[in-house]
Each structure stands twice: as C-alpha cells, then as structure tokens.
C-alpha cells in the first residue's frame, strides 16, 4: 500500500488545506505534503513497492523516473510558492498590462489545487492500466485549470478556457485510442481483454494491426495535445504566460512529462507488437516539427514567459525525437526529460522574480536584470545556457547523446536539421535573454534585496542541472538504462 500513499498524501494535504482557517497552517500543509511525498518517492529508489489492485497500479523504471522528477520539482515549487503567496496576499492588485484591478483566487483554492495537481500527476506515473492512466491525465487538466485562473482577470480566464477545452477534446480523442486498443487486443476472440500494460505487451503480435495503428495515432494526437507537440500545442503559450510562474514551472516541468509518459506507454505496446518503427517514425516527425515550429516563434518573441513556453514545445520535440530514434536516443531522451524539468523549473521561477521586480512581461522593457536582481540575473543567464545545452550543463550531455544516436544510425539529414534548428533557437534566445540581463535598468528601479524563498530553490535547481552535466550517479544511470530498455532502446 506504500504505492497508494503518493496519491493519498497530497489528497489529504489538499483536504486539510481546504479545511483549515489560517493561511499559515495552509502553507504548512503544502510544504509538509510536498516533503512527505518527496521522502516517499526517494524511498522507492531503494525499496521498490509491490504492485497493488491486481497490478493496475505499479511502479516500473519509467514511472519511477517521471514520479521522481515530478516530486522533486513540486517540492521546489512548494517552497517558492510559500514566498510567492506571502507577496501576493493583498486583496486587490493592479494589472500592469492594462489599467484594471483584479483579485486573486482564494489561497485555499490555490493550495488545494496545487496538491490535487500533484496527486493526479503521481497517479499518472503509477498507472499500469491504460484506462486509469486516461482518467488520471484528464484529472490533471481539471486540477490545474483553477491554478491558471489564479489571477482573476480576463486574460488568464481566456487562457484557462482554451486550456480546458483544447486539452479536454484532445484527451477525449485519446479515450478513443483506448477503445481501439481494446478492439486490437480482443482481435476476434470474445474472452475479456484487459487494459493492463503487461497483459497487452504479453499479447504482442497477436493483436490486430490496423486497429493498433489507429489506436497509436489517437494516443499520439490526444496525449500529444497535452504534451504540447506542434501543431497541437496552441493552448500552451497562453496558459504558461498567464498563470503564476510557479504554476508555469509545474506545467512545463512536470505535466508535459506526464503526457509524454502516456505516449510512451502506447509506444511500449507498439514495440511489443512489432510496430515499433511505425510509432518511432511518427515520433521523429512530430519531434522535428515541434522543434522547428517553436524555433520560428522563439525568434520573434517579445514576451519572455511565452518565450519559455515555446522553449518547452521545443524540448518536448527533442524528447519525442530521442525516443523516436531508439537505441541510445531513448537513453538520451530520458536523461533529457530530467534535465529539461530541472532547467525549465529554474527558468520559470526566476522569470517570476523578474516579473515581480519589473512588473512587465515585455522583453523590451526589461533591462539590467544583473544590476537590479544580482542573484536572479546570474541564475537567468545560467538557465539560458542550460536550456540551450551549453557545456557543462546536463542538457549538453543528453542532447549530445541524442545527436550521437542520429550519427550512429546514419540519419544525417535528421542530424543536420536538428543541429540547424538548435542553433537558430540559440541565436533567438540569446538575443532576448542577454539583452534582458545586461544594459541599464530604468531609473526608478534600484537593486532589490532578494528573499531566500525566491532564490533558494532556483539555486538548488541550477546546481542540480550543473551536477548532472559533470557526474551521473550510478543509481540514476541504472534507472535511466532500465527505462530506456522498457522503451526498446538501450
């Protein structure tokens, strides 16, 4: 029953956050639930919990990897959120883009939503039954919608509506994929077919191929909408730019991974059925398309939170591309998922600090971050170097592994395209980010003393992604290799 605790603890936390009256207790509940969740997850690296509910919930290496990323990032975000809520506690706020006043959602709703978000994402990572997986992914959408509408003004409402509708429709299509999978698995015989992953994998090539192909397509389009693969990503920049930065960090670093995991489950079944290359080719196609599409929008981006959002589209493309290549690419992709989550968490949290100091999301109005916010400024540049995969950050190592897989397989066209797009994105981002960091700030801005809650967790994330570039711990490599093997790579 240890496994069920990763879902139950945040749910209990959410319930207590809704019940207690003072905001101090509520914030304590958030930190406590996040910490207990992280400890439970950490323990699973040493003692792997038994599957429960007839094997419907279980933890394989893929699940463990994504659960750990989610849990770690959430703990960082929770610490940051406490400081953030302290700053946001005024009754009304004046909007800096238009001349309007708005209120925030009640703190109980926000903290409750955050914890339910954690619970549903944890459920995604431990689901072995594809039906439960679907339920969990849709639940993540519903739990996170109130978080995007934290600032109650019309722009965040617009973003919330697009998020809700586009993702719900996308995920509904994934449900169709589920049913097609049942049709593929039953393949003419009438005995009951289960949607448990291991049963489906065991069936292998006995499945009905046309139905299985159709199922994979619907999974890819359905969960791909949630993951932000171009051209299905349209909700993503709006939701990321309008939600509070701490929520953007979680959406980008944890939620997109969870949707990716759902696609990986479909790929596992395809591999077992001998359709591995069909799925992988599609992943390569969507991966390159996402990187290219994001690159175009990054080049001309004037809003730095949208810039980061498009960068997430790019990196989701890289993840899909890595798994699509197979072989060493799968290992690189898994490592990159970890690196991207850490880096994007760092960047969004720092973006939150910049937003709080400058009161604008326009790139052209932000100058001299290094002078106004000395610590955040350095972190902003470090995050930029990490996200564009400069050595010695971990992202360099993971993208290098993916490029190496391309060259080993002789896919030179893919490699050239990939490297060209990455350099394009590097140029686009460097222009924006460096201009923001350097220069002379407007006269009214004086250097701000930064609070520890605003910079401690970004520093931690930056150190982590730097450390992963220098040294890969033995335990992590083992799990990454096992996860890549589950995907048919090495």
């Amino acid at each position, binding site marked *: 029953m240890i496994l069920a605790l990763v879902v139950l603890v945040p749910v209990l936390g959410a319930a207590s956050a809704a019940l207690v009256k003072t905001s101090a207790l509520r914030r304590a509940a958030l930190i406590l639930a996040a910490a207990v969740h992280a400890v439970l997850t950490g323990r699973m690296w040493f003692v792997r919990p038994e599957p429960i509910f007839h094997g419907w919930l279980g933890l394989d290496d893929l699940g463990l990897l994504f659960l750990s990323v989610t849990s770690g990032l959430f703990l960082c975000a929770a610490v940051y959120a406490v400081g953030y809520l302290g700053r946001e506690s005024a009754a009304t706020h004046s909007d800096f883009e238009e001349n309007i006043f708005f209120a925030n959602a009640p703190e109980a709703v926000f903290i409750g939503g955050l914890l339910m978000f954690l619970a549903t994402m944890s459920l995604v990572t431990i689901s072995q039954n594809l039906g439960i997986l679907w339920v969990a992914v849709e639940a993540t959408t519903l739990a996170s919608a109130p978080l995007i*509408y934290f600032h109650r003004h019309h*722009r965040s409402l617009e973003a919330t509506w*697009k998020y809700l509708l586009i993702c719900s*429709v996308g995920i509904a299509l994934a449900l*169709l994929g589920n049913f097609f999978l049942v*049709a593929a698995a039953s393949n003419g015989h009438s005995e009951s077919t289960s949607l448990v992953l291991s049963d489906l994998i065991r069936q292998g090539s006995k499945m*009905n191929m046309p139905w299985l192909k159709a199922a994979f397509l619907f999974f890819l389009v359905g969960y791909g909408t949630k993951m932000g693969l171009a051209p299905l990503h349209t909700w993503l920049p709006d939701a990321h730019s309008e939600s509070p930065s701490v929520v953007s960090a979680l959406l980008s670093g944890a939620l997109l991974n969870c949707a990716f995991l759902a696609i990986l489950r479909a790929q596992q079944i395809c591999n077992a059925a001998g359709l591995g290359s069909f799925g992988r080719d599609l992943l390569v196609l969507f991966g390159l398309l996402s990187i290219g599409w994001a690159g175009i*929008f990054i080049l001309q981006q004037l809003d730095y939170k949208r810039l980061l959002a498009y960068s997430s589209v790019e990196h989701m493309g890289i993840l899909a591309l890595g798994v699509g290549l197979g072989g060493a690419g799968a290992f690189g992709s898994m490592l990159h998922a970890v690196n991207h989550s850490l880096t994007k968490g760092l960047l969004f949290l720092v973006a939150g600090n910049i937003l709080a100091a400058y009161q604008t999301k326009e790139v052209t109005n932000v100058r001299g971050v290094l002078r106004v916010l000395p610590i955040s400024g350095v972190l902003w540049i470090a995050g930029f170097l990490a996200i564009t995969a400069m050595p010695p950050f971990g992202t360099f190592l993971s993208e290098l592994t993916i490029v190496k897989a391309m060259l080993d397989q002789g896919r030179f066209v893919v490699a050239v395209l990939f490297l060209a797009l990455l350099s394009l994105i590097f140029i686009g981002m460097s222009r924006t980010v460096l201009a923001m960091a350097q220069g002379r700030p407007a006269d009214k801005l004086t250097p701000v003393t930064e609070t520890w809650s605003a910079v401690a967790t970004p520093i931690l994330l930056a150190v982590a992604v730097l450390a992963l570039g220098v040294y890969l711990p033995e335990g992590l490599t083992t799990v990454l290799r096992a996860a890549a093997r589950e995907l048919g790579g090495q």
Partner: protein
Amino acid sequence: MTNSVDTIMVLLVLTNLVLLGSSRMATCIRVVAIQGIALGVLPLLFAADVLEIHLWVLALIIITMKGFVFPGLLSRTLRELNVIREVEPFIGYGISMFAGPLALGLCFWISSGWPLPAEISSSLVVPVALFTTMTGLFLIVSRKKALTQVLGYLVLENGIYSFGVALARRQPVVVELGILLDVFVAVFVMGLAIFHINREFDHIDTDRLSSLRS
C-alpha cells in the same frame, strides 16, 4: 437485440442532426440529454447476460449522469446567462444541416473498410459512433458560444462512449466510473468558467476571447 441496438443508433443520428440545425440552446441541452439516456441503455442491450446486477447499476449511473446531471448543470449555467440562442455561428445552420448527412455517408464509407471485431453485432454501431464523434468536433469548431462548445464536447464524449460500449463491453466498472467522474468534473469546471467569462466579459462568445496572440 440487434433491432433495439439499431433503433438507438438511429436515435443517435437523429439527435445529431437536430443539434446541427438548431440555434436555441435550451433545445440543444435537451437533445443532448435524450442522447445520454439512449446511450445509458446501450450496455444492457449489448450484454450477454441481462440479469447481471452491476450492468443495471452502471446503466442507471450513466442515465443519471448523462441524462440528468450534465444537462442540469448546463441548464443552470444557461439560466445565469443572458443568451437564448446561438446567433451567427462560424458555419451557418443551413450548411451544417447539409454537412450532416454528407458526413454520415462518409462515416459509413470509412467504416465499411475496417475489419470489425467479432463482438459488434450491428453494422450500424461503428459508423454512427464515428458520426457522433464528428458531430461533436464540428459543434466545437463551428459555434461561437462557450456553452455550445461544451455541448459539443459532451456529444464528442457520447460518440466515443458508444464506441466504448460496443468494443469494450468488459471494461472494468471502476474505469467506466472514473471516466464518468472526469467528464462530470470537466462539465462542472467548464460551467464555472463560462459563468466567470459571462461576468468578466458580459458575453460568452469565444471568438472575442482573442487578446492572447503569437
């Protein structure tokens, strides 16, 4: 049982056509409710053994949710709003009505080429489920009012669900309930969002929600 399954399939087609052609939102909500009740009966018709108790419980829950709770939630939202009908959709009612039968024909043509799993007794199920799914998607993209889009989402869900009943009769009940619960919360949250949109903007036209770009 094939006859009664066919009857329900025809009912689904008719309700879809009504949805494509009517502008009054109250009517649309009622039609979606009828569709939901019809779908709730389906698991009973497909079952080998009609006396299984969990089948009846499931049917009862589906009918309550799809036939009464979802439409009830939407009607309550509608009462809060100052809109009665969807005027000037992106694609007019005439063209929508014309597109309906065309799409139906297309669905029959597509599904005629698919290898049918053995458990589907009626040849109408796959094309009609496909048609309902397409109708739902069409309503979402062709209508402007947020409420009509939620109705479209429900129709889409109904279409997918009718696939599910036909293909995956032996899905565990827990999964079915989980799916229903998710859709319930989705409709609830979307209803709330519409309420906020109406208060913030004084309208629920999603084409005018356009301040976020590129």
